[in-house]
Every structure is written in structure tokens, then in C-alpha cells.
């Protein structure tokens, strides 16, 4: 049994909105660090590299 076209369109539209919602907390996180002028992921990378050398 096939899906109705209107339902398909509705699902597709809501899926696109969902992609935006999934991106929201990541964008918020990056915005927060941009505002604070911090790049904690760089410190984390350095720490990982240092511990790997030890």
C-alpha cells in the first residue's frame, strides 16, 4: 500500500525541519564558544596527542 502524496510531502517537509532542529544545538554550541573566544576542541586535541606520546 503506497503512501498518499500529501502525506509524503508532509513527511519530507517535517524531515527537513528536523534536520534544522538537529543542527540547532551544535550551532548554539559553536556560537557560544565564538562569543567566548574559546576553542576547547584544540586543547582537547593537544591533550590527546600529549598523552599518546607519553
Amino acid at each position: 500500500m503506497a503512501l498518499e502524496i500529501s502525506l509524503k510531502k508532509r513527511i519530507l517537509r517535517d524531515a527537513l525541519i528536523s534536520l534544522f532542529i538537529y543542527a540547532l544545538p551544535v550551532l548554539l554550541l559553536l556560537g557560544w564558544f565564538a562569543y567566548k573566544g574559546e576553542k576547547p576542541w584544540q586543547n582537547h586535541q593537544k591533550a590527546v596527542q600529549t598523552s599518546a606520546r607519553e
Partner: protein
Amino acid sequence: MVHLIEDIFKNLNGWGLVTLTFILGIAEFSLGLYGKKWNTNEKLLDIACFTLPKLVIKPLVAYVGVTFLPLVIPAAKDSLTWIPFAFGALIIAIYDDLTQYWYHRLHHQVPFLWRFHRTHHSAPYMGMAMASRQNIIYTIFFSQTYLTTVLVYVGLGYPALFVKGLKSLITLLAHSSIKWDKPFYEIKWLNPIAWVLERTISTPATHHAHHADSADDGVGYYKGNFGNMFFLWDIIFGTALITRQYPAGYGIKNYKEEEWYAQFLWPIFKSKKEGSELSKGGPEVEDEVEALQPLFEKAEYHAY
């Protein structure tokens, strides 16, 4: 204080929730909230759904987190531990619950998927006993479980502890036959809190409506109210109905009291009940005409 809260959630994610489910289940049963509908077939199904996934699925998820992911993405382990707790919690909450919203919604809207979710809706009652009542295939492919396992693996385990605990509490209480939300509608000064609550999280009123056996009374709404922890998704996508009332009947109209093992293990085991959706050669969706009705014309939420 922080340690106390941490301990509570650690406990909840361990055996705490199972114990809580038992206690509430016993309370519901003692209060006669299941009526006479909890017969042997229903009991066996609810008990199988409650216990067996814990013995099969939990080790599978543990295997994914402990063995499979380190093999496939070894460098990603703990790579996001720099994310602050609040953001980690927000990420887990949205990713886990929005994914479950879609998983759930598609099982209602795609006819091919309906029979994998039907077991959860066949119960003619609400309560703790049916909160985990699902077909095994539906449980195995619970998409958000694996997504959250990946997020825990990359370093969001600590916020996940709290979000998962809170989510389990909300979804358990939304399925309960104890209508904890009723005072919020009846006591006037609590009304504003109710307004926020019912739009944010799943409540017995909105989730019971999803389990109604009919939509004719304007209270039941099994074609919407798909949210699990957050009801907000239903508000955003127009699949919400808020009435602050509880349906008169639960379950599905075409329920033939299919054998517990067929409901639990379909399509591995099929029902012997003639004409059943779970029988050999049975219809994908029995009320096909009704299922094809436009789903969204009625999808509006009451102006409370």
C-alpha cells in the same frame, strides 16, 4: 547535593527504573486500574516484553558500545568530552527524542511498518504493564538507542545519564493509568503550569489520547501525539491534540486478542486468528480505508 542527584540518576539507569515500574505496576493493579482486561494472554505478553528485551537487547547495545564502535571508529572515543554539560544534555535530549519521534511516527504513517508497532497499541488498558510492550523487531531497531550509544561513546555519557533517566521517568508516567496531570487541569492556579507542561512533555492526557481505540469523541487521537519525552515535536509538526481529557477506551478496534507470542515475535511467529493483521497473509492494515484518510486536517491543538 550534586552527588545525591548523580546517585539518583545512576540508580535510575541501573535497576531503579525497573523497581519503580514494578512498584507503580503493583499500585495500578491493586487500585483495579486494569479492570478485567488484563487476562492471561495480555499478562504473558506484557511480562515477555518487559523481561526478554532486557536479556537480549541490553547485551546487544552493550556490545555495540564496548566492542563494535571501538573497532569501527576507535579515534572517536571520548573525542567530544570538551562539550559543556548543558550543551551535551541538549544534544542528547534532542537527538535521542526527536529520532524516537520519527521512528514512532513512521510506524504509524507507513503502512508497511504498522504491524511492528501494533503490539504496543493492542492493549485495551493503560499502565506500567504495557509501557514496554513492543514487538521484538521494533525494540531491536529502536534507532535512538544506537544513536545515543554513539553519543555516549564519543564522550557524552555523563549528560546522557541524566537525560535518559528523566526521559524514562516521563515516558513511564505518560503510560501510567495514574493520571498525575489531572490536578494541573482542575486546580485553577496550576493551569498556567499545565499549559507549559502539556506542550513540552508527554502527559497521561496527551499520551492516553494516542492509545485511544477511537478518534470519534474528539479526545482520542491515535493518528498523532507521537512524542515520547517531548511533546514539543507534535506541536512543531502539527501532529498534536490537547484536550485535557482521557479517552473512554484504549487499544485498537480490530484487536483479535492475537496470541502473545505472535504479537511479541511477529513475523517470526504468526497469529492463527483469521483475518488478523498478524496472521499468515493477513492485511497490512485492516482498516485500510480509514488509515488512508488525510492525517493532518484534524491535527490541531486545543486553544487552552
